[in-house]
């Protein structure tokens, strides 16, 4: 782990970790610490979060058969540099 937990989590994301599970595998940090670090990084503006619509967008074309439902609460955290 280089630096503290925050830097370790950021490094894992930069190295391609896609989920909290993969960050844990890479850093060895407990889940709780990873969750906490992710929240802190969001607060600091180092990550931005947005809900990811998978398969059913809440808005869109009126002719679209999928325009009326919403997706699961998958959240994407994007790295901000």
């Amino acid at each position: 782990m280089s630096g503290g937990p925050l830097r370790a989590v950021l490094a894992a994301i930069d190295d391609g970790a896609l989920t909290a599970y993969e960050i844990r595998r890479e850093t060895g940090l407990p889940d709780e610490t990873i969750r906490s670090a992710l929240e802190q990084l969001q607060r600091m503006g180092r990550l931005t979060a947005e809900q990811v619509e998978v398969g059913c967008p809440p808005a869109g074309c009126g002719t679209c058969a999928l325009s009326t439902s919403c997706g699961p609460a998958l959240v994407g955290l994007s790295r901000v540099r």
Partner: protein
Amino acid sequence: MADTPANFASCHSDAAGPLAASGAPVIALVGSPNVGKSTLFNSLTGAHRQMGNWPGTTVEVGRTQWLLPDGTPTALVDLPGAYSLDPLSPDEAFTRSMLVGEDPPDLVIVTVDAARLSRSLYLLAQVRERPGRVVVALTMSDIAARRDVEVDTGTLAAALGCPVVRVLPRHGIGDADLAHAVEQSLHAAPLVARETPATEDDLEIADHRFTWVQQAIDAAVVQPTTDKHTWSDRIDRWATAPWLGPIIFLAVMWMVFQLTTTVAAPLQDALDSFFSGPVSSAAITLLTAVGLGGTWVESFVIDGLIGGVGMLLTFVPLMAIMFALLALLEDSGYMARAAVVTDRTMRFIGLPGRAFLPLIVGFGCNVPAISATRVLPDARHRVLTALLVPFTSCSARLAVYVMMAATFFPGSAGNVVFAMYLISILFVVLVGVALKRTLWRTMGREPLLLDLPPYQLPHLRLLGIVTWGRLKGFLRTASGIIVATVAAVWLLQSIPVTGDGAFADVPVTDSAYAAAAEAVAPVFAPAGFGNWQATGALAVGFVAKEAVISSWSQTYAVAEPTDLHSPGALGDAVRADFDASSGGHTTAAVWAFLVFLLAYTPCVATLATQWREIGRKWTLFGVALQLSVAWVVAVAIFQIGRALS
């Protein structure tokens, strides 16, 4: 904050308690939201609190007098919940101003959740960066114990450099111990501030706090050597694995298409018989009864509305099953894992990770998918992704795949539909790589983390609502834009341009529709479907892909109205034309047609959205790209297929 303000704007009270006298020590109760801070406040004071806005603010603060064991009256102030002293909300800003302002409280009780120590100790780390009296109230230790997490309060106190008292305010446990600790701290000298790094780098400062917190946790907390793997974790080990994940995803989607086509087929046949039989007969009888038999009205109703829209409606069972299965995957949480798999693929080929977000949406509908490219901060990412979205196979194309597959490959319709989705992914990848290596060679990567929701048992009611919501969208399409397209196609097929026919009484081969399609059809001859019927359907498909089916149905209903009154007759008619145009190489021509249908411009709504999002130049480039790719690949498929057969 040597005293709480006299003009504390009390608006109500839980049970109006006395306020501490002027000069009484002020004790601030702080903590992250949901750590049990207010419950502790109530437990300590018997719920006697006055609530009101702090003077000059709109922040509501509770306060009351709290008597310590030695009888000392104190003013206990319940400050708003705050995760950190770097405020993101007015409440947090207020808490910060109270703690680090010119007049700080005499003592701070930091409420800390034992089950979520890492989260709640960050605030303490900041509080401890200033000299002052601090006591930690450790809540939720019962919940922590249920997770096999044991906190040694003595060790934790040593690591944090301040007293730690275990409390369970719901049961009044630990209140007296906390009062004693506060009393002792008030009589002792303020704590020395903990050391902080001499830097302005906010990340380094925050990381230092996290390290301090983690060291305290490592020293004082006994927890399972590894975090408990939940069911979601265990499944995700396989479902999101780099190589197995995509295979599982493809297998799941294969099952969806198999189930959809297999279960829907008999229902679809029944509806086909219904529309082409009783519904058509009843309409003719009714129209004849009102004197409209044999007129253009009958032609429009029978050949247009029932032939076109009715044929589309036979796909309702198929769409319903498909939507239900997809809703099942979404509600269970699996589709979120599919997003991880897709994202990994995007990264693997060097495309920006976030590009997968709109692309996933594109498999539902291309229009909102292009709108979703706004999530991409880089303009080049937006343009590239908006150009790739039309290659994702939207649900509108599904109905055409199914019709073609059921006609030409009746024994393996599910496999054919599945293959079309694989080809769609292949298009996205190959076109994406090609564009990136030519137009956007310098585009950088952009890491993205996905916070997966846990797996859950699907809720039947929710599945029903989602399925019905989407089915309504399909029906709305059929009753809106498709009816309008059907009317336009009917009009074009009713206008004679050759022969002796009159309006609405003309062989379709002599109509304006056939003439226009005939003029374009040679373009598709190298792809094996250079007949005007297929060309006309593809042209109408520019409006919406569902219209391919309705226009085909109209074309053959006008051409052979009697024959189409039997189930499967549309498929037979289409097959005959493909046989003829391909010179007997029907299978190759059908695959070429399907791939062309997949790759060419999805619909006018997609074009309009592209125009709005990425401008005219890139939209026109996209149309040219889609048509070029579609034509080249379709021709290649047919020519190779013909050579091999």
